[in-house]
């Protein structure tokens, strides 16, 4: 299960995981702060029957997440210039006129993206630290503006995404963002991310 924390699908079949969990729990004394394990479920009914089936309406009203492959992106589109106007009206107050001044998180890089990427951590902006462009849509849509979250339309979010990507030198000024184009955007920081390889033991990482 080497790939459990990367974006590679883990191919270990479920029954093996269940088996491993089962074996690991055998013979443990009760007083060790362990949870009930799957071994206890042998006598359980197949289903307890608590809760109800979710309707597609239940799911659609809550399922707002956007995956890196674009799954979840709604219909709509936006341009850099539209985004610039919306940014000035709804975001500049907290993130600065050009996205660098604050008072809250800087959104725009102050350096040219390629060179600043070599020193990650110095400046954590969309231009040199964000590995996926889809995250921008997802986050702005769910959490911004900070004081009126969830108030933006899909067109507004696409426009703001286009504007911020352009301000960070990632797309050019004629870019149009929609469900097809956004997942195609290549983020310079993507190559810097590595999965956690700490695993206890004597090595300090």
């Amino acid at each position, binding site marked *: 299960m080497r790939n459990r924390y990367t974006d590679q699908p*883990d191919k270990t079949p479920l029954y093996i995981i269940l088996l491993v969990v089962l074996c690991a729990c055998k013979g443990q004394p009760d007083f060790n702060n362990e949870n009930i394990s799957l071994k206890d479920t042998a006598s359980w009914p197949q*289903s307890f029957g608590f809760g109800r089936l979710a309707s597609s309406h239940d*799911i659609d009203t809550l399922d707002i997440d956007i995956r890196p492959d674009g799954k979840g992106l709604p219909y709509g589109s936006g341009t850099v210039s539209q985004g610039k106007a919306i940014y000035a009206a709804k975001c500049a107050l907290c993130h600065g006129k050009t996205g660098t001044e604050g008072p809250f998180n800087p959104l725009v890089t102050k350096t040219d993206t390629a060179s600043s990427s070599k020193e990650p951590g110095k400046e954590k902006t969309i231009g040199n630290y964000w590995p996926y462009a889809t995250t921008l849509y997802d986050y702005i849509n769910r959490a911004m503006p900070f004081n009126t979250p969830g108030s933006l339309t899909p067109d507004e979010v696409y426009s703001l995404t286009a504007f911020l990507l352009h301000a960070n030198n990632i797309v050019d000024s004629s870019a149009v963002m929609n469900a097809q184009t956004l997942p195609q955007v290549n983020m310079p920081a993507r190559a810097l*991310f590595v999965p956690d390889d700490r695993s206890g033991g004597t090595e*300090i990482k």
Partner: protein
Amino acid sequence: MNQNQKIKRRTWLGGAATAAVVLVQTSFGKVMQRAVTEKETATSDPTKKLGPLPGEVGTRSPFEKLQKKPSDTSSRTPLQDLYGTLTPSDLHYERHHGGVPAIDPEKYELLIHGMVKKPMVFKLRDLKQFPSVSRIMFLECSGNYRGNKEELSPQEICGLTSQSEWTGVMLSTLFREVGVDPRATWFLAEGSDAAVMTRSIPLQKGWEDTMLAYAQNGEAIRPEQGYPARLVLPGWEGNTCVKWIRRIEISDQPFMTREETSKYTEAIGGGKIRQFSFVMDARSIITYPAYPNPVEKGWIELRGIAWSGRGRIVRVEISTNDGRSWSAAELQGPVLDKAHTGFRYLWHWNGDETAIMSRAVDETGYVQPTLKQLSDARGGNTGGYHFNPVTAWIIKRDGRVLFRPEAKK
């Protein structure tokens, strides 16, 4: 005087502002008479006054000033003021991204959908009907380090860790109920706060030991801790333990949310950024002696807590001579898996300036590193997430206890 007469006498005295006259010593050494009110005599001799009758909710003694230390984004547990290993619920640290939401438990619903046989909605009372579990464990924010000046208390250095007994239903029980697709590998957990906070979590952790908790230390979870329900992932960074949870989506890939890309990732040198660093490595802190409380020459019992997200603490070592030699501290049982563990060490301080420190060793053999070891391993970084260095207290000759800042910034 029988009880009845006593009460009558008290009632009779009740209206008087001055209950007695006492002798007090002034700062000039003169003995003076001072009138004290009935309230004051009552507190100075509790045997002379009937106390309040049994009440509905207990209170903390007015003499105890236990307080979290809030900033705009978090609030820290006063580790130096606590005893044992359980954090009183109202002093549990807080970290949230869009404030504390107010959720009506009658309207609360949890949706589980995605790669499942039966997408389902559970009300709070549904969740409480499933087989339940309780477990004592710590929760720690992975951004739990401050080290920029001498005047720092344990609360300020690493007060973003707290311990509770959590009660709830195992996520595996719910996974079983909805029929998770065996090809699934990750799930998304989403909160219903104003940040609609999301994290992707490897499905295996969900099957292994993740709990969907609705109670903390014997009562419903507090609003600041996720009322009415949250995830608790034993040993994993607090941010993955999504509070106010409203939705779980089963998937075959991570979602790359803002909190697992822009935040909760750390530069580790060589131009690399570490992602999905879930487990909290072993750590310890001496909570007594500690800033701001001075000590006196003589016998001192060093006390503190140690914990590891990878299992049990097997040893805590103490140095009272600035790291030149180390001895084992006594561990206070029960030593629980992925839980704060108390330690103590009896020491005779001769009054010379020195530095005292503790380091934790967990069951994987991991030894809590020094700041230099961590910084060397991470390309010179002296902060950021998952920063768990050995913490030294300088004991000055006059008894003052100061934190020793080692980070460059």
